[in-house]
């Protein structure tokens, strides 16, 4: 009984100690946060004046205030461009912060330190970080590679296109993040994407033609059309989708041929593209596939047929009762 009482007492004391520790930790964090906010509020006018006209930042600041200035400038680096952004980059380079983060990215022992360094270098947006960020795409840790990809996108570095496509097709970084980064680079990525169309690796050709469809112009439609003959179905599928965005009535005949591709995903992509081009020449073929092809192809063809010729699609739906066509016509009427 006495032993039980001692155990209860020890547990109660330990529990109380733990609660006090948690409470103390919360209070300490709140005090720290309040101090940071106060310093940010105190220094924001000086930082804004620096961004606006290059007025000198206060000198002789203690370490915490120096950190507050760096934090504020880091936040503003994400928000501004033009001369204000140039001033921020100059500040970080002059203060040795870019060099410190570059060293952390190459030599940081923990994944989190390297990933944070990669992220910060993107926020600071100093172009001098590009070579190190490119090397970080080969880091053993996915978090570091992802942070480097994001930062290269933020830096809009055309030199990073091939490397980002490479990590995209290898699955080394989240696909959505890699695509986002390439889209951030924008039209400057187009020449490098064009050269990737000749890659020996089918996944690279597929990614290149997909992104060309998003970033390229009418001049790239011919290249996309050529890829409809590719040996890889994934490339033919992406080429058809790209033609839907970049193409014109000149590409309808080739897309109609792709409607007879032996791979269903290619046929579905060709049907979607024909729907986007809205050339009535495609109506008969689309209605035929909407009624008789496999599930995904029939659904894509039905939707496309409604876009190209809603009246004929409605007549055919009423006459045949083809489920995908009926559904597409109903959805079209709702819209």
């Amino acid at each position: 009984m006495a032993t039980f009482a001692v155990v209860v007492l020890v547990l109660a004391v330990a529990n109380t100690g733990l609660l006090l520790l948690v409470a103390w930790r919360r209070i300490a964090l709140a005090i720290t946060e309040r101090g940071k906010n106060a310093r940010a509020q105190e220094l924001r006018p000086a930082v804004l004046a620096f961004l606006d006209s290059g007025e000198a930042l206060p000198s002789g600041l203690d370490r915490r205030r120096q950190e507050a200035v760096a934090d504020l400038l880091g936040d503003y680096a994400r928000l501004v461009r033009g001369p204000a952004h140039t001033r921020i980059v100059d500040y970080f380079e002059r203060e040795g912060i870019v060099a410190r983060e570059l060293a952390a990215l190459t030599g940081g022992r923990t994944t989190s330190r390297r990933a944070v360094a990669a992220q910060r270098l993107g926020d600071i947006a100093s172009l001098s970080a590009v070579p190190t960020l490119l090397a970080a795409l080969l880091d053993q840790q996915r978090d570091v590679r992802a942070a480097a990809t994001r930062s290269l996108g933020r830096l809009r570095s055309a030199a990073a296109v091939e490397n980002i496509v490479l990590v995209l097709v290898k699955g080394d970084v989240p696909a959505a993040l890699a695509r986002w980064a390439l889209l951030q680079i924008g039209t400057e990525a187009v020449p490098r994407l064009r050269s990737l169309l000749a890659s020996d690796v089918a996944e690279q050709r597929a990614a290149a033609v997909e992104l060309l469809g998003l970033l390229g112009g009418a001049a790239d439609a011919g290249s996309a059309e050529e890829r409809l003959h590719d040996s890889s179905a994934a490339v033919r599928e992406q080429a058809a989708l790209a033609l839907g965005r970049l193409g014109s009535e000149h590409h309808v005949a080739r897309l109609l041929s792709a409607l007879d591709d032996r791979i269903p995903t290619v046929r579905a992509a060709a049907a979607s593209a024909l729907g986007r081009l809205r050339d009535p020449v495609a109506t008969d073929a689309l209605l035929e596939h909407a009624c008789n092809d496999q599930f995904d192809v029939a659904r894509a063809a039905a939707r496309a047929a409604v876009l190209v010729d809603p009246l004929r699609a409605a007549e055919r739906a009423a006459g045949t009762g083809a489920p995908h066509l009926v559904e597409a016509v109903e959805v079209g009427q709702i819209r």
Partner: protein
Amino acid sequence: MTETAAIPTVLVADDDTDVRGLVAYRLRRSGYQVVEARDGEEALRLALEHVPDLVVIDVMMPKLDGYEVTRRLRSEEATRRVPVILLTSRSQEADITSGFASGADDYLTKPFSPDELVARVRAVLGRR
């Protein structure tokens, strides 16, 4: 309109302190009188109270988003003709048409150049 007609009043609405502070600072330095709001509801209330010459408003805000504030400003007699500039992030660029549909006059994409912001403000005020 405000009584000090010589100094145009701009309402700046953004829940992000950094953005709001930057826009307000730059506009004040350029000679405008600035009223600041931290969310959509406050923006609407201050707009009806001050009837500014221009509103610069973030799309994504708590309580009421920038589109809804713009629509409501357009539905009120006092603020119907007050020009609106929307602040959007790059990822919201696809929604710019929604901004114009709600009645906005112009938009600015983040990250933005403070100089460009002032140029847009001048241009929109000059069109009135």
